[in-house]
């Protein structure tokens, strides 16, 4: 099974029925996860996205390379400006947001800005998008990376673009990599599960810091039924593109 599909299932399982979720650009897996949730356990989830269709019709959906592709809004019930999603977030009414992370530290803080210094970057990354704005104000932050490696899971970020764990806040931070699932807590990143096909050694040898390990599960992959849903939404396997880099 492709790790994308395992990751999508993990992301979907973070969404509870009735919750408001948002995804931004460059987010094929979050988009599929939101639909998977809506078509299974969370039919009343509110679907907000960068293409600005509120609750697009999954029957009409097909995944394209740009998350803002207007066809992603097909069959929606309204236009929801991204500004409106941000306002909802400011009111504490966006339950969850998905963000990538080029670098992730043990507190689940993220860097999406630059490798090296800001002023003279070795690599200028695409940028944090809504990370700095949304990461402190949503209730569930789901970070993902398709590159589980020491370069991603770093001791120290080159730039702090988004905020992970925050003590005393009603905020859950989950990290989904192509190998494992973590959840941030005060003392660090707790390993929750390892994806089928990977060993604990695979996971640990590719991190620059030690996660908290205190028993962990095997990540639940999508069922056959769920795989059918994912494949129907993404018949051309756009979701795997992210892994080719």
């Amino acid at each position: 099974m492709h790790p994308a599909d395992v990751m999508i299932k993990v992301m979907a399982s973070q969404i509870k029925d009735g919750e408001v979720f948002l995804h931004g650009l460059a987010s094929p897996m979050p988009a599929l996860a939101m639909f998977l949730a809506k078509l299974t356990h969370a039919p009343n989830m509110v679907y907000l996205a960068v293409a600005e269709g509120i609750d697009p019709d999954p029957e009409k959906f097909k995944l394209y390379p740009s998350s803002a592709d207007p066809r992603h809004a097909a069959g929606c019930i309204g236009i929801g400006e991204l500004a409106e999603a941000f306002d909802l977030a400011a009111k504490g009414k966006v339950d969850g947001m998905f963000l990538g992370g080029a670098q992730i530290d043990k507190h689940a803080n993220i860097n999406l800005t630059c490798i090296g210094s800001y002023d003279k970057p070795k690599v200028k990354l695409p940028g944090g998008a809504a990370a700095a704005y949304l990461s402190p104000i949503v209730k569930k932050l789901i970070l993902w990376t398709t590159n589980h490696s020491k370069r991603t899971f770093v001791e120290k970020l080159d730039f702090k673009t988004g905020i992970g764990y925050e003590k005393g806040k009603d905020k859950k931070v989950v990290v989904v990599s192509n190998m494992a699932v973590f959840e941030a807590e005060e003392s660090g990143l707790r390993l929750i599960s390892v994806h089928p096909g990977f060993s604990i050694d695979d996971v640990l040898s590719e991190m620059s810091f030690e996660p908290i390990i205190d028993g962990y599960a095997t990540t639940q992959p999508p069922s056959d039924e769920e795989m059918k849903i994912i494949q129907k939404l993404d018949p051309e396997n756009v979701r795997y593109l992210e892994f080719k880099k």
Partner: protein
Amino acid sequence: MKDKLVDLDAAVDLVGSGDTLTFSGVSMVRKPMAFIAKLIQSGKKDFTIVDREPGMDFDILIAAGCVKCARAAMVGFELFGLAPNVRRAVQEGEIQFIEETCGAVVNGLRAGAMGLPFLPVKGIIGTDLVELHEKLGNWKIINDPFGGGEIVAVKAIVPDVAVIHVQKADRCGNASLEGSRFEDVYKAKAAKKLIITAEEIVPTDYFKENPEKNTIPYCYTTAVVHVPKGAYPTACPNYYPPDYEEVLRYLKMCREGKVKEYIDEFIRRW
């Protein structure tokens, strides 16, 4: 209402070197590419360009050497990878890049649209972006005057020119955005000059019959240009999707060091 219909060259004349510009759309959707082609052709330069999440518009303007400073929350080609010319220009120190965050750039544009000197914006505090923007004078951490604690104030963004590609406009500058609007209405209302490029010129009766469809009324508009496929290769909802193959061809040519060739072709397209 006066007739404001002009051609692309006349619209480009409204822009001056050194201006701060903003463009409609995000990523591969409704970017005013035809206008950008003519802007490159005009030889004007030293622009500051500001947007939430641009893509090829920023990348090709930077490739053409027209840009002094770019300000955005994200620039790239999503699954197709980093913006090659933005990346190169920033890494080589050729342009200044100011990284925004979506909520702040949106509220900065809304402040501009509302005629307010600034707007507060939640979140952000605790990230490394704060120091950067405080130094530049774009943001300031203030105390909520009503006791809610610290909050970021973002200074109004008032571009010299906004270029907004829409589906339909009349000759007087009434314009209709169909489907996703992004921050385009705010951009249009915040800017000192507004250039509308439109897939279709409709009679004013179109708006009289559908006043709710008039998302940008004529009183904001400086000039209107009729440019079918004016957002190509980015999408124009209800008219055409993004041409992913063409975007990939651009990226391939950039990688192969042929960006100047692409630009020559791009300029001749309109």
